[in-house]
């Protein structure tokens, strides 16, 4: 118990002093996570909307697949990306392994199904309300998707938030493809795992506090945005 409080005190001191290592790890984590979520949104939002609105053979199978992929094991994704990006792999020539780029790719694969599946549900519900109106206006399929995505934007923040949560907390895949190299690919989660295994609880705890704080801040901000949008009848 004494160790815990000592570690806790050191963690607070590290945060208060804006320790350079701590700041570097946080910055890289945010860079990787936000990049991955942004790319996943670019893919997942239209994909989810097309699954909600489109009528094409295999739509149900595609929906089942996307839903199933929400539960992808991160270490399996990490292994797959590792094999593809390793020197002997098909994309080895890109030399992305053990770089933040590889970590972003792994996280995009993990996060995209989450965003696409949640988007499909949100857009499908809204489509039920708008369908006759948009058809009566002669709206094109792409126009329908754009209208639904825009009007569901506040609800879709929840989908992005879920993706962000997954990416922020992810450790297995980024550890395999990033290698947890100091000053290169060390993120908050991989650093926590490493420092804990080495018994350096202060840094691990400090990063843990910041990780939780980041999740709470992002969640609160999005909740506030949704609430004010609902009050304004835009949500």
């Amino acid at each position: 118990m004494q160790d815990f409080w000592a570690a806790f005190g050191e963690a607070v001191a590290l945060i208060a002093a804006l320790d350079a290592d701590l700041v570097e790890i946080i910055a890289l984590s945010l860079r990787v996570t936000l990049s991955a979520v942004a790319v996943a949104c670019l893919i997942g939002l239209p994909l989810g909307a097309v699954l909600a609105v489109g009528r094409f053979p295999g739509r149900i199978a595609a929906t089942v697949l996307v839903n199933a992929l929400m539960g992808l094991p991160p270490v399996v994704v990490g292994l797959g990306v590792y094999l593809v990006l390793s020197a002997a792999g098909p994309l080895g020539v890109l030399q992305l392994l053990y770089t933040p780029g590889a970590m972003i790719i792994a996280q995009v694969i993990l996060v995209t199904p989450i965003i696409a599946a949640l988007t499909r549900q949100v857009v499908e519900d809204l489509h039920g309300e708008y369908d006759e109106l948009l058809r009566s206006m002669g709206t094109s399929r792409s126009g329908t998707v754009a209208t639904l995505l825009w009007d569901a934007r506040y609800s879709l923040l929840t989908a992005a938030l879920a993706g962000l949560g997954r990416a922020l907390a992810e450790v297995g895949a980024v550890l395999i493809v990033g290698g947890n190299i100091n000053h290169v690919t060390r993120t908050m989660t991989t650093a926590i795992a490493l420092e804990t295994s080495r018994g350096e609880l202060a840094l691990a705890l400090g990063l843990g506090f910041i990780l939780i704080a980041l999740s709470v801040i992002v969640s609160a901000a999005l909740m506030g945005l949704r609430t004010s949008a609902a009050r304004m009848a835009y949500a």
Partner: protein
Amino acid sequence: MRDMARISESSGIWPVALNGVVYEAGGKRLIDDVSLTLGPGPLTCVMGPNGAGKSLLLRLIAGLIRPGGGSVRYGGAAEAAPHRIAFVFQRPVLLRRSVRANLNHALKTYGVARAERRGRIAGLLALGQLEALAERPARVLSGGEQQRLSMVRALAARPALLLLDEPTTSLDPQATAAIETLVRKVAGEGVKVVLVTHDRDQARRMADEIVFLHHGRIAERAAATRFFDQPQSPEAQAYLAGRLLL
């Protein structure tokens, strides 16, 4: 509005002809062998008791649902020219945007150039007496204001045929009067209006002709004055006498 009349005359959708149209759902025939020809001109009210198929008929005319049998033709074509038919629903369906943005979305959908939209929006806001509400979220408007917005949004297409599905249901008399004034104005400019209503007084006020539906069939079609003074079909006679139609 002057443009609207020109488009109505040259729209190429006339006549809208339903020939032996059948529509079934859940094993039940809801529209049963309906033949009906609509041309530009008189304001047509579709009347009938609940479940007669009034709203379904309107959706069949709009092409929102496909008939299980028979055909719907527009000037001889299987499809109406884009944006020539506009639809106003019983419950206004408004986008989660401001009043102005709802109109802008409609104009954009109808292919109106950005430079032209500002002036068109101003005209539509004035037509619906919605200028003061332009920046308000559409979904916080009153029921009457929402329906006026739905009406002018439909008119953004400069349609030849305007289909109104009980647009004043659940509105107060003042809001109803505003909608009826708007409908008369639009009809006066040459837009063909088909109005579904179960409100006999409204039909008396608005209609030039009546199409009376019962059990998915046209029981009677007549000029409004004749329909109300001397209904020919037993169903219409019973309906106007206030008897229950089973």
